């Protein structure tokens, strides 16, 4: 360093978070004794407006050319203090942060003397590092004016419509033959009881008609490369064995198809053909031939069926499509807990034990029974129906794959089922076995009152066991009414297990492709649980709906709209600023050994021929600044900007000086 280093140290009290444990004034005094420190001060909240002004003014007044703030985690306020440093006229990368809160006073509050020692060590180290920092310039890259939405349930549909309405070209990818997702299987929705089809299908049609949305159904994301603003996405359009442009949705192929197999859309409660649409209101209304069950009888190609349309081609291959997008929204939804694993409840053993989603199809006007609720064993209308709430939720039993969290929708949909049963079957009594009724949303508690008033019976106790009478197929449910302290053994016609919501299996692949993480519950991890629940730690990738955690339809729609707004910001801005914290290769010293190529977890290093010699280079936009390549380079040719060997060594030396 040619220029004399003049560093300012600012010690934050953080109210009593820091000042309640250590002597902040003494720490500032200590900082003044360190080499290169020209100024040191303490303040109650350095992040506040007066605190930031203090930094700006001190830089000018004391002619500082580097800053250190001893406060919280850089994750919280590094951007704040960088900005204050820059506003004072010093390059923002000449700022360094000493964490004396999260890693010190919060965890060592019982040992204030040692905490003080540690605070001194950390401040000394950061001052040493700040003396070695080099000014850097942030880079800007242009952003592609297009977005990708993965998954076309209500979350993906909502997000796509919002993006498209904001004038952004949106690619909506759905793995199933139709969009609509789980919501399209529902009959009525709580608490307003408007029918799912009536509110969802118009949105599905809007998606198909919107000129800004390119809908890709029966398609899966195969590969993603690039970075925020410039993602290259490869999408596999699985072959329907039907030309979408030729198919007019007449359904004649389905009529003649002799194959019968369970329809996944109806959870196997009714059959479909090998040539099928999952449900009549499907979007797009294009038929798909399920090659796994097709017997290639060619009946669908005859003159009576598809005939002159010639839409069917058994040899039609999958197609790979590549699109370029600026941002990505993940809306991959959820699965239902495999409640068969709770053997004491007898699902799939006893005919009349069904899941909540199966009840939804049985109660649905567009379902296999046309909305007539019947019990599976004999087709009779059930007169007493038990509901087991928290079936796999709020349950710590990992061996059964149960989930410790609340699934947030089961109380309410069970209340809704109870209402529908009372309405549809005169004299039918629903018994809800619950531990707590969680009716937390707008108009939800009122809905709970309503069902109580209609005659729904609420038993506070969890079902221990269900047994079946082999002749009548009636079920005996054993539970304790914990409010009476009395054992109940109730003979019921039917039992509905309100099974838990679990992370979707299909999300795993997307998670890997986009280098996302998940929280301990298995759902995708957000950037911040409260203040940024729709972003991820991968820049340019956002989350919408249940893939991030259980939520009901109103919350999914809000979340999706928030994700769309967040995803449209970089696109509308037109460019993004990239942190200059990336590796650079000194190509003179690079031996072209390719060690760094295998080490980089982000695929940012590549080998190219320069002047007849193989040398490595780093894609600055892809590089996350982890430094793995630099530590692995045998010839020391890779420099990690902002974390150079010299900078790190200076910190270690400063640490050692204190001992």
């Amino acid at each position, binding site marked *: 360093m040619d220029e004399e280093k003049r560093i300012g140290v600012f010690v934050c009290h953080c109210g009593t978070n820091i000042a309640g444990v250590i002597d902040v004034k003494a720490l500032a005094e200590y900082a003044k004794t360190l080499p290169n420190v020209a100024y040191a001060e303490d303040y109650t909240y350095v992040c506040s407006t007066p605190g930031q002004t203090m930094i700006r003014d001190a830089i000018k007044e004391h002619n500082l050319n580097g800053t250190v703030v001893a406060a919280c985690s850089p994750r919280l306020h590094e951007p704040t203090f960088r900005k204050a440093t820059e506003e004072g006229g010093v390059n923002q990368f000449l700022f360094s942060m000493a964490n004396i809160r999260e890693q010190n006073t919060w965890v060592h509050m019982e040992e204030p003397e040692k905490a003080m020692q540690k605070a001194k060590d950390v401040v000394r180290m950061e001052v040493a590092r700040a003396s070695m920092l080099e000014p850097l310039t942030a880079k800007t890259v242009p952003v592609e004016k297009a977005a990708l939405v993965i998954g076309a349930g209500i979350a993906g549909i909502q997000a796509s419509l919002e993006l498209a309405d904001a004038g952004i070209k949106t690619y909506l990818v759905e793995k199933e033959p139709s969009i609509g997702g789980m919501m399209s299987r529902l009959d009525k929705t709580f608490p307003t009881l408007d029918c799912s089809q009536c509110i969802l299908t118009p949105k599905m049609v809007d998606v198909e008609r919107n000129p800004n949305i390119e809908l890709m159904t029966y398609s899966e994301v195969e590969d993603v490369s690039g970075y925020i603003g410039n993602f290259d996405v490869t999408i596999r359009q699985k072959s329907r064995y039907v030309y979408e442009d030729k198919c007019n949705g007449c359904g004649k192929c389905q009529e003649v198809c002799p194959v019968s197999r369970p329809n996944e859309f109806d959870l196997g409660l009714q059959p479909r053909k090998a040539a099928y649409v999952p449900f009549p209101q499907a979007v797009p209304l294009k038929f798909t031939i399920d090659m796994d069950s097709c017997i290639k009888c060619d009946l669908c190609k005859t003159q009576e069926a598809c005939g002159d349309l010639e839409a069917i081609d058994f040899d039609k291959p999958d197609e790979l499509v590549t699109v370029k997008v600026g941002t990505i929204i993940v809306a991959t939804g959820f699965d239902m807990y495999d409640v068969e694993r709770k053997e*004491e409840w007898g699902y799939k053993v006893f005919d009349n034990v069904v899941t909540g989603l199966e009840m939804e199809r049985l109660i649905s006007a567009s379902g296999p029974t046309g909305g007539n609720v019947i019990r599976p064993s004999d087709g009779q209308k059930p007169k007493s129906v038990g509901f087991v709430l*928290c079936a796999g939720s*709020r*349950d*710590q*039993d990992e061996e059964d794959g*149960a989930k410790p969290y609340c699934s947030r929708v089961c109380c309410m949909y069970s209340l809704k089922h109870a209402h529908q049963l009372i309405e549809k079957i005169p004299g039918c009594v629903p018994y809800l076995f619950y*531990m707590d009724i969680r009716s937390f949303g707008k108009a939800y508690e009122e809905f709970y009152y309503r069902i109580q008033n209609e005659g729904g019976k609420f038993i*506070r*106790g*969890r*079902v*221990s*066991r269900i047994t079946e009478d082999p002749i009548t197929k009636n079920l005996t449910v*054993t*539970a*304790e*009414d*914990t409010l009476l*302290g009395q*054992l*109940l053994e109730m003979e019921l016609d039917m039992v509905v297990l309100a099974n838990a919501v679990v992370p979707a299996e299909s999300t795993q692949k997307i998670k890997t492709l986009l280098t996302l993480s998940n929280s301990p519950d298995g759902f995708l991890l957000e950037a911040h649980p409260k203040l940024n629940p729709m972003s991820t730690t991968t820049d340019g990738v956002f989350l919408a709906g249940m893939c991030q955690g259980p939520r009901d339809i109103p919350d999914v729609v809000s979340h999706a709209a928030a994700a769309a707004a967040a995803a449209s910001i970089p696109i509308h801005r037109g460019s993004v600023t990239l942190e200059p914290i990336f590796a650079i290769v000194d190509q003179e010293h690079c031996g072209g050994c390719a060690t760094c190529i295998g080490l980089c977890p982000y695929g940012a290093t590549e080998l190219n021929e320069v002047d007849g010699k193989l040398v490595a280079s780093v894609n600055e936009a892809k590089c996350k600044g982890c430094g793995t390549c630099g530590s692995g380079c045998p010839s020391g040719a890779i420099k990690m900007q902002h974390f150079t060997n010299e900078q790190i060594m200076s910190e270690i030396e400063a640490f050692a000086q204190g001992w």
Partner: protein
Amino acid sequence: MTSEGMRDPKHYQLGKTQFDPDLIKEVEARGGKNAQMCYQCGTCTAGCPMTQRSGLRVRTVMRKANLGMREVLDDPDLWLCTTCYTCSDRCPRRIIATDAIIALRNIATQEHKVPMSMIKIMGSIAKTGHGVPNSEGNMKKRVLLGLPENPPTTHTYPEYIKDINKILEVTGLLKIKEEMEAESQ
């Protein structure tokens, strides 16, 4: 409020109700894992074979233990658990309620709150090595089935009874037995 006006947090008395917050910690320390996690769903009581046959209510036991109601230690039904572990298998909170009951029994025993019927069983174990020793009728049935009169336990090897007594002595059970027998005289 002055410090004299504050309640002792260890044994606080709320009107006529007295709670001991340390009871549940002791239960957990003695093997009743996760006992504090109970959310009173009643799966345990509903699955318990003794619910229909006795006054034992596992959920109620867990509730009293959690609140610190030491009266639970006086409950004779505490001793009717067959330790089949059905409650523990089905518990959604992964509480081993059976072990919590065993812990409560151990505490009750140390406080001389074990029923005298159990003390009698203890005496039988000290004398024969069996809580329920072999009987004449049982011996006849065994012979009819082609089995020896006695099972291969202390009934066949009485020399090991002294070792069982050693266990009873080391665990302090013999002493408790003697003291309780003296108290009941």
